[in-house]
Every structure is written in C-alpha cells, then in structure tokens.
C-alpha cells in the first residue's frame, strides 16, 4: 500500500470513522483503524460492538489530492495514536507507505513516522446488506424522527429492548420508544412503500451518534437492513448499527383513541409553567405536580407541593379547552422533556381519566407525532 493525500481531507475522513472507535473494547483489533486502498479510492473503517462507520476518499475529487501508487489493506492500532500523528504533521500533504510485515511509514515534509500495522484479515467483516428493505429519507426528517423518539428510550440496561427505538416499515415508517413511564411515537409517510414489511429495534445510543453526524447533511439518507444490522448511507459515509434482539412489546394498544378532556397550549408557555412548578416538586420526595382542569370555568391550574418547602399554584392560559372536569397528577420531568421537542408550536393535551395515560400532539398534523405520559396515582 502506498498513497499520498491532502492532509485536511484525510483528517476529515478520520474524524468521521473515529466516532465508532473506542479505546475500551474487548476485541483488541477494534481499537484500530482499518484502511483499504483500491485502484481509485481509500476506504477507512472504524467499529465497536455497537456501531461501525465506513467512509471513502476518492481520487475523483480533486480536493483530496489523492494519488494511489499501490493498493492493499491494513489496520493501524490504536487509531487514536495514528490520528494524533496525522493531525500534527507539518505539511499540506502526507504519504503513507506500507512495507513488509505491515511496517508503515508516514511522511510529511521533513517528518517521518514508522509504526507497526496489523493484518487486515483479522478485522471483523461488516455485514452483507439486504437491498430489498431499503428506504430513503431526507436528512432533516431523519434527525427529527430521532430527536422526537430517543427522549423516551429507557436507560435501564436490565431491559435492553427498551433502550432502543422500535421501527416498523411498510407504507409508513413508524418509530416508537418507551421507558414504560412515557412513550413517544412518530409516523412518516413513505414515498415508495416497501413490498414486504420490516420491523427492527435500533439502540438509542446509536441513533444519537448518527444524529450528531447528520448535523450538516442536507441530502437523502438511505436506510437498508440486514439480519442484525441497519445501515445508513449518506455522502461518502456508511453508518452501521447493531439491532437489538428480542421482541419489542406491542405498544399499539397503549395509545388511547378517544379522550374526554382536551386542552390546547402554546408548547413553550406550558413548558415554562411546568418548569416553574417542578422547582418545588423536585424538593419533595414524590416529584409530582397536579393539573386541575375545569372547562366550564375556563380554568386550568397547575400546582406543585412540597411538604418541606412550600406550594406553588399557577393559573394557565390555554388557547382552548373542552370536555369534563379533571384532576391529574404526574411527574413533571416527563412532560417537560416531551414539550421541549415541540419547540413553540401549539399542542393539544388530551386526557381520558386521572388514572389513564394522557397524550400530547401537535395541533397541526396530529397523526404524525404523539407522546404519551402515564399519570401518578396518588392516595
């Protein structure tokens, strides 16, 4: 293997794959960076037990200033060390040359590093991807789906399946997450529906990492599936994540399809009031606040109560309200996190009874996004 390349272009690609490389892994070769050089491109691969990232640098893009003298593959380990070297090299370009026994020379300007590489055959193979189950989504939309659902993902490792977001694909894409205290569900109409349905659970942490990488993306993201991996392709990069094994609980019956009391708010205003009330509830042992709704009197009151510290009461100004009187208590943190993802749009909060979960939906296109919160039973 022998190539020379523009240092900045190389660092950019390194930064991308390094997201998947962890120093703490039980498989030693995964602390390394895999480099594959073929006739017209270099492919970098980084991987941990959960995600793998691959990115290509092509001779076709003149900015890369890529010149390939000899092809080949190897693993440089630890990757962090190699990346540090590349970042500190003096010149605009660098040259990588691999001799026998994976002896690697990195040259730039007057500086020359010699490091030991490893045989790339020891590196795990990335999964074969099934092209039947494939959809495309705009980057912005995918980011939105992720941010709306990962908030409800469980942090309890003891229930691994709930630490992921459950996707079902057919005519629609449906993404659901629940930590069993609240649930968040987003639906997206697919432009070209799948011929056979697919159903899988992606770890919440993988999605958060993916979302960070999509920050600057504008184009379409391609999602494809294999038996136990999902692949997101964007630009020159492929992002693989492991899927969670097991059956996701059936959440379809959890969402109520009717309601007895409805209140509309500007999400931001309700959020501010909840944050104020939770100042007090956080001081109490239960962390519970109460909503008292009296549609006839056009009144919605939020109360927080801490026996040790005191009490807060605030009259809210809903944009509309209808239905039966209701008193309901709940953990304000769940409502707060739910409201944050709505930004400032108007929302409808719908209740059935003091003991049944209540829902929050955007007023516009209410079928697309729904959040569900379980109330607290007080005695």
């Amino acid at each position, binding site marked *: 293997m022998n190539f020379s390349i523009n240092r900045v272009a190389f660092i950019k690609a390194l930064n991308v794959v390094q997201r998947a490389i962890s120093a703490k892994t039980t498989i030693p070769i995964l602390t390394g960076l895999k480099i594959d050089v073929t006739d017209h491109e270099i492919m970098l691969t980084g991987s941990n037990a959960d995600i793998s990232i691959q990115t290509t640098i092509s001779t076709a893009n003149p900015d890369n200033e890529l010149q390939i003298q000899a092809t080949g593959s190897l693993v440089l380990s630890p990757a962090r060390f190699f990346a540090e070297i590349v970042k500190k090299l003096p010149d605009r370009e660098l040259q990588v040359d691999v001799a026998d026994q994976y002896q690697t020379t990195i040259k730039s300007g007057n500086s020359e590093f010699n490091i030991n590489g490893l045989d790339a055959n020891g590196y795990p193979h990335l999964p074969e991807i099934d092209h039947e189950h494939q959809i495309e989504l705009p980057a912005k939309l995918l980011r939105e789906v992720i941010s709306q659902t990962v908030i409800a993902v469980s942090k309890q490792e003891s229930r691994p399946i709930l630490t992921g977001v459950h996707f079902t694909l057919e005519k629609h894409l449906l993404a659901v997450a629940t930590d069993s205290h*609240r649930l968040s569900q987003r639906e997206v109409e697919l432009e070209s529906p799948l011929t056979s349905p697919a159903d899988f659970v992606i770890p919440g942490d993988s999605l958060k990492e993916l979302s960070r990488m999509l920050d600057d993306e504008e184009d379409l993201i391609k999602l494809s599936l294999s038996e136990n991996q999902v692949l997101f392709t964007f630009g020159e990069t492929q992002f693989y994540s492991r899927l969670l094994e097991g059956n996701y609980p059936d959440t379809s019956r959890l969402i109520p399809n009717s309601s007895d009391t409805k209140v509309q708010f500007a999400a931001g205003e309700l959020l501010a009031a909840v944050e104020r009330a939770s100042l007090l509830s956080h001081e109490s042992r*239960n*962390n519970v606040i109460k909503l008292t709704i009296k549609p006839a009197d056009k009144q919605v009151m939020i109360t927080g109560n801490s*026996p040790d510290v005191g009490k807060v009461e605030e009259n809210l100004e809903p944009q509309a309200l209808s239905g039966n009187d209701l008193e309901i208590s709940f953990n304000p943190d769940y409502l707060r996190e739910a409201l944050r993802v709505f930004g400032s749009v108007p929302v409808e909060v719908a209740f059935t009874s003091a003991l049944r979960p209540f829902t929050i939906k955007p007023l516009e296109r209410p079928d697309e996004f729904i959040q569900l919160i379980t109330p*607290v*039973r007080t*005695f």
Partner: protein
Amino acid sequence: MVTAIHELSTRLADQISAGEVIERPASVVKELVENSIDAQSTKIDVVIEDTNHQVIKVIDNGTGIVPEQVELAFRRYATSKISQSEDLTRIHSLGFRGEALPSIASIAKVTMQTSDGIHPGVQLQVMGGQLGTKQPAASRRGTTVVVSDLFYNTPHRRRYLKSANTELAKITETINQLALGHPQIAISLRHNQKEVLQTAGRGNLQQVIGGIYNNQILKQLLAVDRSTDDFIVHGYIGKPELTRASRNYISLIINGRYVRNADLSKAVIAGYGSKLMVGRFPMVILELTIDPSRLDVNVQPTKQAVRLLDHQELGLFLTETISQRLQKQNLIPQALDNKVVRTTVSAHNQMEVALNLTEATPPIAQLPATPQPDQPVKSTQRSVVGAPILVKTSDDLQQPAVRAFQQRYAQEPAGAPFENQPTALKTFPSLRYLAQVHGTYLVAEGDEGLYLIDQHAAQERINYERLRVAVGKVENSEQPLLVPLIFDYSAAEALTIQQNLATLASIGLQLEPFGSNSFVVHQHPTWIKAGQEESTIRELIDWVLVHRQVSIADFREQTAIMASCKQAIKANHHLDQKQAVALLQRLAQCENPYNCPHGRPVLVHFSNTDLETMFKRIQDTHDSKESEF
C-alpha cells in the same frame, strides 16, 4: 378391588429418589463430577451438547472401576466409599449414599465407559434402570459417563425444565462451586464446542476465582489465612466496597464440599459489621477444614445442606477472622502511611465522633480540653469507653484500647446507628461554612476547631430522617408502568416472596404471581428514581429474601435508607455557598447528625489543640515565640 400393600419396585423407588437427588441437568453434572473427584481425578472435562435436549458427558482420569464391579455402581445403596455406619461420621468423600448413579439411570439413558488402566476397559449402558450388556472398551485409565434423554420417562419433570440457557447457567454455577472447592483439579466446561470455563488445576484458589468471576475482582479481595486447634480457614474476602445484591456470592467450602448454611453466611456478614451498605452482601470465598466427625453432611439427598456440631464456634471464628482482617485493612490506609500527623488527627477525631454514639461516653464537651501526650493509655486499661483514647502516632493505633474500641465498633450490629440516638449530642457544633473540597467534602469552622463534612453522608442523613417519617405515611403515590416489569426467581426464593407479598404491598410494591416462579409489577412507588426501578425493586425483594419474615417497620426503615442514599448528592458534585450552608443547617437539626444511615461518619473534627499540635505550636511554644523577634 383393594390394592395390596406391596414393596415399591426398585425401579419406582429409584425414580422417587431420583426426584430428590436429580432436579435438573445441573444435578446430574454435580453428581457425576463429584464421583470423578472422589475417584482422585486430576483432570475432569464436562461437555454439554444441546442436541436432543441436553447431552451431558463427564470425562475423568481417576481410578476407574474394575470390570466386574461396573454393574454394582448402578445398584441402589451400592457405594465403595463407606461401609459401616460409623463411617458416616467421618466422611472425606463427596459421595457416600450410593444412590446418585442408580437415580440418574432410572430417569435417563446412561452410558459408562471405565477402566482402572490395568484391566481391559468396559462399557455399560443403562436406561430407565434396565442394565444393558457389558461390552469391551478402550483401557484408558479413568471413566467417561454420558447422560442423555434426561426425564424421558417422567414427562412432568421434563416440562419443568427451563430454557437450555437457564439450565446451562445452573450447570455453570455448579461447576464453579466444585472448582472453588478443588483448585488442585483441572476442571473444564464446554458447551456446544465452546469453552465456558477452564481451571488450571495448579492448586491456586486465586486463579480459580479469577477464572470464574474476572481478574479485575482479584484486586478487591483480601487474602485470609487462619488456623486454630479446631478450624483452618483459607480464602479471600471482598473489601466492603465490593458488594453484591444477594448472599449467593458468599461461597463456603467445608472439607471440599460447597455448602449452604444460613448461620455461617450470617456469621460472615456479621464480620463486616456496619461496613456494608444495608441490603448489600459481600463477596467471600472461604475454604474451611474441620474435623469430619463434627460435620453431618447426610442431611439432604443433594448433600449441600450441612449440620455442624460446633456451628456457633465456627460462626464466631468466621466473624472474628473477617472483622480482624478488615480492621487491619482500615486502620492503616496506604495514602497516609508516611504522614503520621494526619493519620493521628483523623483517627483520633473519627473516634471522638464515634464515641459519642455510645451512651456511656461523655459528650465531646466533657472530654479533657488538652491531650496529655506523655501519658499514653496504659495497656492494662480495659474499658474502651469513658476515657478518651489518645493517638499521637500510627504506632499508637496498636494500643490495646484502640484495638478493643475498634473491635467493639466493628461488631456494633448494623441496626444500632439507626435507632433513635440518645441526645447526649446537644453539643453539635455551630458550623461556619468555609469551602468545598474536590466536590466531595465541605470544610467548616466552629469554636472548637475545624470540621470536614462528607456531603453525601450528610445529605443521606438528612434525607433519611425526613423519609423515615414520610415512608411511614400511607400516602404513597404510585407510578403505573406502560410495560410491566417481570422478576424471575428460584423456586425457593419465589416461595419466600409469596409469603411476604403483604409486606411488600404495604410499601407500595404490588407483586403479582406470573408463571411458575416469576412476578410481575405494574406500578411502583414514586419515590423510586426513574431508571432505577428494576434495581431498587430487586434490592427490596432481596432484602425480604435475606430476612425472610420482615416487619413493616423494618421494611419502611430499609426503604427509607435506600431512598435516602439514591436521592443524596453524590461525591464530585459542586455545591454553591448557599446550598452548602443550607446543607449544614439542616444537618444540625438532625436527631443524629454524626452518622449516615449506614453507620459511617458524617464529619470529622480537628480540635484547636490538634491543629496546634500538628504545627508543633504546643511543644515548641517557647521557641516559636522567640523566633518571632
């Protein structure tokens, strides 16, 4: 028609006894490996294959059986290990009942191939108690036993078998227990061609522990070796920080036999005194050697329960051994080894604070104002309370009075600090907050000197006193779960839980039976922190399992402690001036501001005299005055 009374057919009798000895595949493994151990093997390989249910194969290199006796091995009550009934009082072997092989052969297909290495080898197949014909086989010294089709003729038992994974877990646990008792034997376990465990057989217990748990854990273990005329103990005990949620990590091996004995486990836990978090258990692996005639292993067909003639003595011996080992560890913290002055002060004052807990002790205010450095506590002084203990150098820590005090404090029952403390403590100093150190400790001054406060412990104490009242009130609110939690237990555990459902319900935990030994929880009290539902509920249930019967009062106490710890600010958390001052104020209002609910100190005191001594102002008053001029 009247059924005549008749003797049970041997086959039926074997099946009944199989029911007692052989509960599941792991029991088969246990019996076979024990036989291999008794046959003086130095290498035992266990192979489990998941084809056609489970096939279990045990290969050893032991004495083997001579050709003409192979059938005998399968006969009920045939054993080579004991002959007269007095032998029962001096059992050195693991097996002695002569019923394991016939029991297994009555409910499964068993093939044994064996040779003593001298005579030609033979192979014999037995199925459902029917002996097959003996065939010649290779004469490798040792025995291979293959068991398949377990429970083929007792379908109701087969139905109770758990998934292959659960059974494998039990098998692994069994092998672990046997390996811990026999570090000198190389024992391996393979499952579907994959190695699960392999011990080196070099007689090194530490290596075996590392292989079973992980090597990381070794750093947290302390070696224990002690012998008296009656007992010898060798093994490892976990530092108090290394805790587990159940007693299952206390492994006691008596004369090579892994035993379960509640009294001895309690004695081990007692050795930790108040050093363990409530509801948490230590990790302990101890090999005990005692006179076999003092030990009755013929209590139960599975031979795991034992009766000890000297169980009280042995219990005391264990408690003492452990508490002494831990004291050695605690009294000389490495970081302070070469900083005699600091050791002095903190040790001294920790004791002052602690001493205040015992009623007989005068409060700090009544202690002599100045220490008398030239009058060390005389070694004849026996009482540990009533007089201050003066510690000036680390050597003083060896004083009998100090040791006696430590011993007493270490053995203080864990419950003691939680009781309402007699308020001999009206002297709690008024503290002026100065600073926070490392986001963990608060520094404050009072008229009597300088104080260091552990912020986590302080907050725990405050929370605890508040929650102890709050949990008692029945206004518990409940958070329902969209997806219920399911908890699986062993049959024995499930029974205990069943018996305590009402107690659990009284603190808001509604467990509903769900399948054979599982429980489902649809809602939980809101004081349980999000993300900790499962672990907290497990801890609560574990607590019931340990204490068997619990009173509601105990339970509330426990619940409050647990909640207070989970809600308390942790170390490495920055507090601003206001928060710190508020914390100290609330601490001062506590009934017992000196200890956290787990019994650890909340604050330590450096008296003015201590400070002066540290800076040599007391001894050198004259000199320092002079040098100022």
